[in-house]
C-alpha cells in the first residue's frame, strides 16, 4: 500500500452560510490520476484550492506530502494549472516558462517542456496574442516545467481542439507512467474515462462515489441498444424493462435494464432489424445516475427525473 501524497481528512469549508465542503476525505497516491467530477458548485475547485493552500480549512486537515499545503517545501513539488489565470500579456511564451522554471529547485529541461506541451512554435510569441487554446497549452507548460510530483489540473482541455486535446492526454499518460500523480477536474467525462485510474464524484460538498472508472460505471446496470428498425418508439416504451426509447431518423435508441430479454423480443418483432449495437452505459450515464441519487432527498428533482 502506497503512502498518500495529498490528503483531505474530514475537511469542512464554509463561505458564510454556504457549506462548500462538508466532511470530505480524499487521498492521492504517487503515480495515479485522480479525476474529480461533479456538477458546478459541487466543491471540486474548493477541494483543489485547499490542497494548494490557497484557502484554509474550517475543520479537518489538508496536507501535501504530509506538510502544510502553504509551505514552500510542499509547493516546490507541485505544478498547477488553474481555470482562470491571466498571465502577463506582454511577456513572450519562452519568458513565461523561464520565469516559472526559476521557482523550482530542479526544473525540467526547457526544450522538453516545450515539446511535451506542444508549444515549440509559440515560444517567441507574446502571450496576449495567443488564442484561447494556445494559452491553455502554455499554462500546461508552466504546470509541468518544474518537474512536479503532483500536477493539479483544473479543466485543462477546455478550449482545445481535438488534436491538441489528444496530444495533452498522451503527455498526461506519460507523466503518470513516470510516477507523477495528477488531480484532474474536468467536465468532459470521456476525458476522465480515458485517463483516470480513480474517479471521485462530488455533489453538494461531499464525495458521493469513489472508485475506478469501471467501478463507477458499475453503478449503472443499464444497457443501451441502438438499431435500425421501423418499430414505433411508443410501442417499445410500453415493454417491461425498457426505460427509454427514442427515434432518431431511421435509428432507434433504447435504454433498458436486462438487454437480453428486450433483444429477443425486438428481433422477434422486427425481422428487418439491422445495425444492432448493445453497450453498457458509460461514465456519463453513471455520473447522471449517481448525482441524481444524491439529489433524491429533494422532491423537485425526483419529480423531474
Amino acid at each position, binding site marked *: 500500500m502506497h503512502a498518500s501524497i495529498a490528503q483531505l481528512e474530514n475537511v469542512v469549508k464554509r463561505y458564510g452560510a454556504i457549506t462548500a465542503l462538508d466532511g470530505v476525505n480524499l487521498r492521492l497516491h504517487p503515480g495515479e490520476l485522480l479525476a474529480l467530477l461533479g456538477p458546478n458548485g459541487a466543491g471540486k475547485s474548493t477541494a483543489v484550492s485547499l490542497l494548494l493552500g*490557497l484557502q484554509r480549512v474550517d475543520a479537518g486537515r489538508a496536507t501535501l506530502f504530509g506538510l502544510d499545503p502553504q509551505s514552500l517545501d510542499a509547493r*516546490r513539488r507541485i505544478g498547477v494549472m488553474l481555470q482562470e489565470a*491571466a498571465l502577463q500579456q506582454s511577456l513572450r511564451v519562452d519568458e513565461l516558462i523561464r520565469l516559472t522554471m*526559476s521557482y*523550482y529547485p530542479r526544473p525540467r529541461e526547457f526544450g522538453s517542456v516545450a515539446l511535451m506541451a506542444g508549444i515549440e512554435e509559440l515560444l517567441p510569441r507574446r502571450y496576449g496574442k495567443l488564442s484561447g487554446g494556445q494559452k491553455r497549452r502554455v499554462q500546461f507548460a508552466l504546470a509541468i516545467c518544474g518537474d512536479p510530483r503532483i500536477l493539479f489540473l483544473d479543466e485543462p482541455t477546455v478550449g482545445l481542439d481535438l488534436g491538441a486535446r489528444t496530444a495533452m492526454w498522451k503527455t498526461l499518460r506519460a507523466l503518470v507512467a513516470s510516477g507523477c500523480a495528477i488531480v484532474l477536474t474536468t467536465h468532459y467525462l470521456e476525458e476522465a474515462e480515458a485517463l483516470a485510474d480513480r474517479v471521485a464524484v462530488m455533489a453538494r460538498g461531499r464525495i458521493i462515489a469513489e472508485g475506478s472508472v469501471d467501478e463507477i460505471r458499475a453503478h449503472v446496470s443499464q444497457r443501451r441498444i441502438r438499431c435500425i428498425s421501423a418499430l414505433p418508439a411508443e410501442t417499445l416504451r410500453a415493454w417491461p424493462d425498457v426505460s427509454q426509447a427514442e427515434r432518431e431518423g431511421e435509428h432507434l435508441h433504447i435504454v433498458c435494464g436486462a438487454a437480453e430479454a428486450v433483444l429477443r423480443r425486438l428481433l422477434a418483432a422486427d425481422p428487418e432489424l439491422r445495425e444492432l449495437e448493445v453497450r453498457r452505459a458509460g461514465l456519463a450515464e453513471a455520473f447522471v445516475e449517481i448525482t441524481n441519487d444524491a439529489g433524491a432527498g429533494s422532491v423537485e428533482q425526483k419529480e423531474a427525473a
Partner: protein
Amino acid sequence: MDTAIAMSPARIARAWLVEAKYEFLRLLRTPSFALPTILFPSLFYLLFGVLLNGGAHHGGMDMASYMLAGYSAFGVMAPGLFGFGVVVAMEREHGLLTLKRALPMPPGAYLFAKMLMAMLFAAIVVCLLMLLAVTLGHVRMPLGNWSALLITDVLGVLPFCAIGLFVGTLVGGQGAPAVVNLIYLPMSFLSGLWIPLPLLPKFLQQLAPLWPATHLGQIAFSASGAGGDHRVAMHAMVLAGFTLFFFAIARRRLRRAG
C-alpha cells in the same frame, strides 16, 4: 519520497532577479503604463518648468532647479503608485496573484521585483528630466547635487510603492487607475511639487506635512540646492514610516483576502 526540495541561496537570488527582470520588461512593453509614466513628467516639466518659466528667481529660490526637483519628485511617484496600485489590483482580479501563491515563488520575490521595477522606471524618468534640464532648462548645479537628486528620487519611489500596494489590495482593476490618480495629482499639487509651498494658501501649507509627497519634495529641493528646509533626516524618517506602515497593512490585507 524524494527530497529535491532544497533551493540554494544562489538559485533563490536568481529567482528574485528573474522575477524583477520580467516585471520590468513586461511593463516596459505595456504602452498604457510605460508611455505616461516616462513621458508625462518630461512633458509637464517642459511646459511649466521650461517654457512658462524663464529661469526666474523667486524669494531667493532658483526656480529652474526648483522646477526640476519638483517635477522629478512628481515623476517618480507614478511608477510606485501605478506600478503597484493598478498592477496589483489587476493581478488580484485576474487570478495571477492566486496562481503565484500556488506556485513556489520565493516569498518576497513578488514585492522585490515590483520595487526594483519601480526604481528602474524612476531612474529613467529622472535621467530624462535631467537631460531636459541641462539642455533646455538652463539648470546648472554642482555634480554632488545632481547625484543627490538622483539618489533621492530613486529611493523616494518606495513609499509610493507601499501606498500603491495598499490601494491595489483595496480596489478592483477597473477602479484602480481613477483612485490612484485621485491620490497622485492632488497630492502633487498640495505638496508644493508644482508650485512652491510658500505660494500656496496658508491652510494648505499647514496641511502639507500630512502628505508623503511633501517630504520627498523637501528632500529633493534640499538635494538640488533649490531651497527646501534642509531637515533631510526628519523627512527621510517620515517617509520610512509611511513606507513601513502601508506595506504592513497591505500585507495583512493580502494575506487575508488573497
